């Protein structure tokens, strides 16, 4: 018996978009409001999970051809790499730095290395969560 998921899929398309946007927002704004790499990553992951829920694995993988293990690995590498970067500058490991710039369009903007670190965290979280869920689901 075929089960038709039209309603679900239609809504999902919109919802996933909202969630992804929200996830990115959480990740970027984390330094000043609740959020951050973790939560951002988790929310992004849940968007992807929603995709898997409403579609099947094959279909999602076609449109999102990523090896999530490697995504996670890149994330970890990024997160640790920022720490290691401080070694090059001769400051203690994991030294973060930040500065304010007056950018044309955005106005006063804070740029901080924490964001790179957090990006690594977010990537790792997305990668790991999806890897886990995919691994279990692919198991016969």
């Amino acid at each position: 018996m075929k089960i038709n998921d039209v309603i679900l899929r239609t809504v999902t398309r919109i919802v996933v978009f909202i969630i992804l946007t929200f996830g990115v927002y959480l990740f970027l704004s984390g330094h000043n409001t609740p959020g951050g790499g973790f939560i951002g990553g988790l929310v992004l992951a849940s968007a992807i999970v929603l995709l898997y829920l409403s579609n099947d694995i094959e279909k999602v993988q076609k449109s999102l051809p990523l090896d999530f293990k490697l995504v996670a690995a890149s994330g970890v590498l990024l997160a640790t790499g920022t720490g290691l970067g401080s070694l090059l500058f001769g400051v203690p490991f994991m030294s973060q730095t930040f500065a304010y710039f007056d950018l044309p369009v955005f106005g006063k903007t804070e740029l901080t290395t924490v964001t790179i670190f957090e990006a690594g965290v977010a990537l790792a979280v997305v990668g790991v969560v999806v890897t886990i869920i995919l691994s279990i689901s692919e198991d016969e």
Partner: protein
Amino acid sequence: MFSVTFAIIIPFIIAALVPFIYRRFKLLHIGWFVMLVPITLFLMLARLIPSVASGKTYIHTYNWIPSLNINFTTYLDGLSMILGLLITGVGSLVILYSIYYLSTKESLQHFYCYLLLFMGAMLGVVFSDNLMVLYVFWELTSVSSFLLIAFWNHRKASRLGAQKAMLITVSGGIAMLVGFIMLHTMSDTFSIREIIANVGDLTEHALFIPTMILVLLGAFTKSAQFPFHIWLPDAMEAPTPVSAYLHSATMVKAGIYLVARFTPVFGGDQLWFWVVSGVGMITLFWGSFNAVRQTDLKALLAYSTISQLGLIMSLLGLGSIALQYGYSEESIIYTQATFAALFHLINHSTFKGALFMVVGILDHELGTRDIRRLGGLMTFMPFTFTVGVIGSLSMAGLPLFNGFLSKEMFFAATVQIMNADVFSLQSLGIIFPIIAWIASVFTFVYCMIIIFKTFLGPVQPEKLDKPLHEAPVGMLISPIILSVFVVGIFFFPNLLGGYILKPSMESIYPTFGDPANLTPSIHAWHGIKPELLMTIGVVLVGALLYRLLKKWKPVYGLLSSRYTLNAYYNNFLSFAESKSTNVTNKYMTGLLRDYLVYIYLFFILTVGGFFFYSGAFSISFSMDVRIRAYEVILVGVMAVAAVAMLFSKSRMTATLLNGVLGYSIAIFFVIFRAPDLALTQLVVESITTALFLLAFSHLPDWKKERVPSKTKITNAVISVGTGAVVVLVALAVLNYDRFETISAFFENAYELAGGANIVNAILGDFRGFDTMLEVVVLFIAGLGVYTMIKLRAKKGDENIENK
């Protein structure tokens, strides 16, 4: 003096080289090469005899672990000289003998490697001044003895014998180590010389007696004193050269050496006197008594060795009494016991070495050493017979042989001790001559057995696997040399006394001044004294007993084999193994629940127990923040949801209830002003629930658990107990208000880290390291899940691992 250190090192070096040389020169018996080592060393030592005799000592230190005061200090004095000469001298003869004894088919490289290892270790024992280095070599002798006993390790008896020897001697060694450490704590030095020099500080120390006992344990186990002697007969599984060398001439003398060495420290103490001489006497008697019943010649010799070791040991004990008196004209008489001990030490090595070699010859040439199959060999093996008779008669203590001299001195010492007026010897002293005499009678009996049952009487060629013939000349050289010594020492005993024994008396009685006073001149004839009468008595009664052997031998049957020390040892081991299997299986059930119960119980008992015992509990509500109604309701929701999990009938319900818990905690995080936490908790909880659902498609629904109500009650009690302890301690912690937390610092997050979200600033910056590692944790888990699902054991891979 470098050469002494050199003497210890050389055997080790050669031992390491033996396998290579063996591979190079397959044709030549490697023993010839190895024999050069002890001969060289013997000559080297012999060269020093005159100077040592004149009271000179040689010390050399080579740093090993100077920061712990453990240094490779060698010390050559009279006492170590005796042992050194024995080790190298008998060693040379034994190797010569072994060249003929062991065919090139045996794994000779191993044999000689072990033998050299032993030789080096034994030299190390006697030449070391540092207690720890002494211990190192001491254990090495046990190890090499183990390897030699297990030389024919395909035989079960060899392995068991080796194990027994190793266990007993190493255990004793460990006891001795503790004793040494105690000596170090008392004296603050590892050097034996320094300890002896400052012995006065030790005797009052509380650890003096325990130290003494521990050191003696080491000595007694090594020297096969009662009741630790049981390893020695089993050690006879070793090739006969080994038995001759280690288990009669040298290694078992290490314990004697140790006692002699430590006599200046402990001697003079009543306990030392009684334990050393008492154990020696018991061993003397028990060994000789048991030797008589043996039918295997080697076993007989083993018991006789035990007995003789007891004799030497008891002499050392008797001699130690002189130190109680201190140096005086009267006390010198007691030092004669020690002199006799050293004398007999040498004599025993000569005649027992010869006898072992004789037995080895019989075994090797005739294929048996069972006296029931031997007899009348005198005519067929005249040389072997001669050596055997010389050895036996010397051991029996008859004139013309060196055994007579030392035996006489032994009797004299036991008689003399009755005159001592300390240690309640006036009344108890009488037992020494009595036991000595009885034991000597038995000694005489078994010596007669050796002579008459093997060499005289009817020939029984039908019971032998090989034709009767004399041994090859090479094999006879060594025993003949030894028997020459047996006779030679009888005629020129004072040569030995003056050059060898005198300096060692000084080592044992350092406070007694000129050793010449302590060195009597030895005479075979010294008038009709009690000792001579005793010897005559021994011969008469011994001959009678030998005649009547068949009549009284059933006495041995009275000793049930179930109650022998050996049986106790074996029963103890098997009991220990089976009992420990039972015990361990009892608590290592393999059940996770049991393990958890242990942990929880331990937690409740220690943390909870101490908490109440110490009165740390305190509670106060003053700090509490006001409660709102909805908060109470939410707490109620969580409590109900939690409890409902226990009773839920399906896993889905329980999982959903867990979700409720998770969501409710998120709302508490909101109430407690933790926005980041609330967010994270919500997402994590949902994903966790999803994971549960994912996993459920691979798992069966849970069945109703059939658990005995007793288990249920235990579980409930533990659960409530754990909860209670956690709560009560938490309440006390809440009430403990002394310190400001460090987090005020983080409130400057904006200036410090450019973040307005303090929590995020902590996670990303102040404690970014935690976050980094936590990402790693997550990554490992993700990767782990992947591998666990993808990598599966192939069928058939299980067989090994799953037994």
